[in-house]
């Protein structure tokens, strides 16, 4: 199909129409609004069959999304900034209940001062929630990721919410040529929705969202670590399959002119596109510069980032979010890769730490997750 001139918001609305989820609980907020406005129009015109739920807030949107995703219905939503902040409490629960909700995010600064324009602070607010976070460079990537996202979210080794971020206004409101797949192609790519324990399956009755005391909280949280680790290879596998149908491939990172680069920029989102132009310009002047675009921030692709940067002598990390009093999030990830400081996690949910655990840490014999019950 020949490309159409679409904004990122419109392109994602088309992706949602083509995926045609069962349920979309959503609340409007700038700059996400064009996504859901476009999708609501498709529903009104009968071009999408989803149950569109006009909830009273983003907190309710994610609450409804968890219910419907776990009941057994493919579920999508969308938000930005303050909406994600209001939703945040429930986003953590969506991840821990392993509800494979797909969320479109128009990345926008957090208040205050109030501001409707782009940065990545909203995504970073839920950095540690357990959701998969992908950052698109342009409208085409935002569209393609939204088609890929249900496959990633619903993969039996992952079962996590997947958030597809696109820079507010820069992508959400800017028109560019976007190649859409045929509707039938998208439908067959995403396939049927399936999860291990749908609540409406009366053959296997389950109670979900359990209370977990110190004797099991750590283990249940740790399953998110495993799911995030699994998502790294699942994203690459889905990217390969998507390449087959679209001719476009999006890996967890994209190295650009890095083979012989001495200086490199690491960045996420639309700035990767601008950086590619600057790299080309500097390369034309004989400068050995390159770019590492990080597409998957959660899971963070440790091995791929380390490999891509191994020959670079000067690395600059560009964060579109700050951490007052600390280090910006993407920088902290990249620096962590170069660190020889050992990392241990302990005591989650009230799990006790004993003096012998500390002696094992001193001796270098403690596992990374101290006090976690695991096999092998």
């Amino acid at each position, binding site marked *: 199909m020949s490309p159409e001139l679409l904004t990122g918001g419109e392109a994602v609305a088309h992706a949602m129409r083509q995926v045609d989820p069962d349920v979309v609980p959503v609340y409007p907020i700038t700059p996400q609004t064009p996504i859901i406005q476009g999708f609501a129009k498709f529903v009104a015109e009968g071009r999408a069959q989803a149950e569109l739920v006009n909830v009273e807030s983003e907190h309710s949107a994610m609450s409804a999304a968890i219910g419907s995703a776990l009941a057994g219905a493919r579920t999508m939503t969308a938000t930005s900034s303050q909406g994600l902040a209001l939703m945040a409490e429930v986003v953590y629960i969506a991840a*821990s*209940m392993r509800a494979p909700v797909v969320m479109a995010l128009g990345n926008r600064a957090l208040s205050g001062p109030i501001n409707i324009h782009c940065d990545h602070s909203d995504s970073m607010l839920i950095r540690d929630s357990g959701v998969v976070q992908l950052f698109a460079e342009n409208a085409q990537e935002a569209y393609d990721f939204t088609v890929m996202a249900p496959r990633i979210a619903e993969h039996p080794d992952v*079962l996590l919410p997947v958030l597809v971020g696109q820079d507010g206004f820069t992508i959400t409101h800017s028109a560019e040529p976007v190649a859409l797949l045929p509707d039938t192609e998208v439908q067959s790519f995403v396939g049927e929705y399936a999860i291990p324990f749908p609540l409406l399956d009366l053959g296997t*009755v389950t109670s979900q969202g*359990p209370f*977990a005391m110190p004797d*099991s909280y750590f*283990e249940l949280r740790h399953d998110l670590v495993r799911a995030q680790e699994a998502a790294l290879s699942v994203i690459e596998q889905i990217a390969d399959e998507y390449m087959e149908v679209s001719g476009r491939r999006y890996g967890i990172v994209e190295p650009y002119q890095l083979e012989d680069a001495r200086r490199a920029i690491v960045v996420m989102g639309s700035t990767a596109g601008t950086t590619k132009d600057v790299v080309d310009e500097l390369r034309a002047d004989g400068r050995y510069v390159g770019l590492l675009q990080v597409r998957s921030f959660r899971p963070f692709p440790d091995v791929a980032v380390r490999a891509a940067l191994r020959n670079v002598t000067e690395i600059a990390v560009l964060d579109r979010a700050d951490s007052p009093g600390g280090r910006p999030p993407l920088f902290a990830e990249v620096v962590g890769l170069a660190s020889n400081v050992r990392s241990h996690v302990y005591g989650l949910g009230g799990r006790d730490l004993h003096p012998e655990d500390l002696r094992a840490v001193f001796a270098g014999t403690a596992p990374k997750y101290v006090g976690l019950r695991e096999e092998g």
Partner: protein
Amino acid sequence: MARLSTWQELPAGGAVVAAEAEQPHTGGWRTGLRPDVDLSKCINCLLCWLYCPDSAVELDGTAFAGFDYDFCKGCEICAEACPTGAIEMVAE
């Protein structure tokens, strides 16, 4: 106490399959009062069974057969629901 699960053994999201829900004996949280029955007053209306939020009223077919103290939390709802005063809360 049963051996606790490793993280690998737990189902995704901690979903509790119905058959497993009987395992934690939540009667251990009981308030300090437990229901006692005077069977001479019981008319087998089964309102206690219907109202019990913890399924702790046992039946023999369709007849009242006592309380399951492994799950009774001492909430007193059965005693309130009983129309003949056959159920009385007694100190543990």
